């Protein structure tokens, strides 16, 4: 692999990183090639000793993604952090993706339940106008009960979801340390 193709590959693998950060990282590898050339090493030799660009990109992205998820609280970032950690090995595939997907699915379905109960409340009111299974006062009180339930459920879920977020991050950090072989 030549210097140019190595740098291009690394650049491509890091395309989702902010430009500033990417340039800073790439500079290290650019310098490495320059200095290797000064010491009389060929571009191919330098590329070979640097190692697989995918491995390097994985190591660079690992810390970055977890940190990004931490600083910007959004769930796309969290999923990215999860996948960056997973890409480190099969062990992680089982121990991270499994619990993450399962818990996320449970949370999502509970949110769907909360929404469904709210819709049911609305439906009783619509019903009292068109089909008249319930009288209007009955429908109104049923709807209020439904909405109260749905709001309570949503409050509880909001708490659970943010706990889930925090726990996932904590677990990722722990896992990252284990994978890096860092006992701290």
């Amino acid at each position, binding site marked *: 692999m030549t210097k140019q193709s190595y740098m291009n590959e690394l650049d491509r693998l890091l395309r989702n990183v902010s430009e500033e950060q990417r340039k800073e*990282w790439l*500079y*290290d*590898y*650019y*310098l*490495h090639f*320059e*200095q*290797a050339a*000064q010491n009389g090493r060929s571009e191919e030799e330098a590329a070979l*000793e*640097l*190692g*697989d*660009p995918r*491995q*390097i990109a994985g*190591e*660079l992205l*690992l*810390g970055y993604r977890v940190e990004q998820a931490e600083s910007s609280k959004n769930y796309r970032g969290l999923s990215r952090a999860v996948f960056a950690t997973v890409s480190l090995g099969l062990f992680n595939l089982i121990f991270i993706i499994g619990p993450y997907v399962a818990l996320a699915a449970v949370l999502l379905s509970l949110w769907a339940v909360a929404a469904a109960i709210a819709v049911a409340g609305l439906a009783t009111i619509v019903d009292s106008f068109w089909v008249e299974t319930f009288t209007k006062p009955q429908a109104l009180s049923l709807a209020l009960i439904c909405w109260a339930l749905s709001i309570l459920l949503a409050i509880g879920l909001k708490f659970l979801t943010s706990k889930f977020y925090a726990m996932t991050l904590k677990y990722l950090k722990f896992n990252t340390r284990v*994978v*890096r*072989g*860092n*006992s701290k």
Partner: protein
Amino acid sequence: MNIQFKKGVLEICVLVLTTRGDRYGYELAVMISEKFELAVGSVYPLLNRLTQEGYFSTYLKESTEGPPRKYYHLTPEGWGHMRMLIAEWNSFTKAVNEIVEDGLRP
């Protein structure tokens, strides 16, 4: 050598290698790869992380040949972190050696 093992040890090595003066990335990468086999490219992500954690500060310095080099300077926090790692490493290797010696005794 086991790769996880190597990564943990690598951190101690780069920290120790900067105690006698600031070093630039290529220098560190080469010094380490002379001692044990590893993908040299892994040294840079490690240097980045240690810098981010405040154990290194970095600066660019012109060189007579080629582009400016990025130097790594060990901060006081870096010294503390290194001492802690070395203490852990020593007690760890001591324990392993004791077990190995006991196990191999005739």
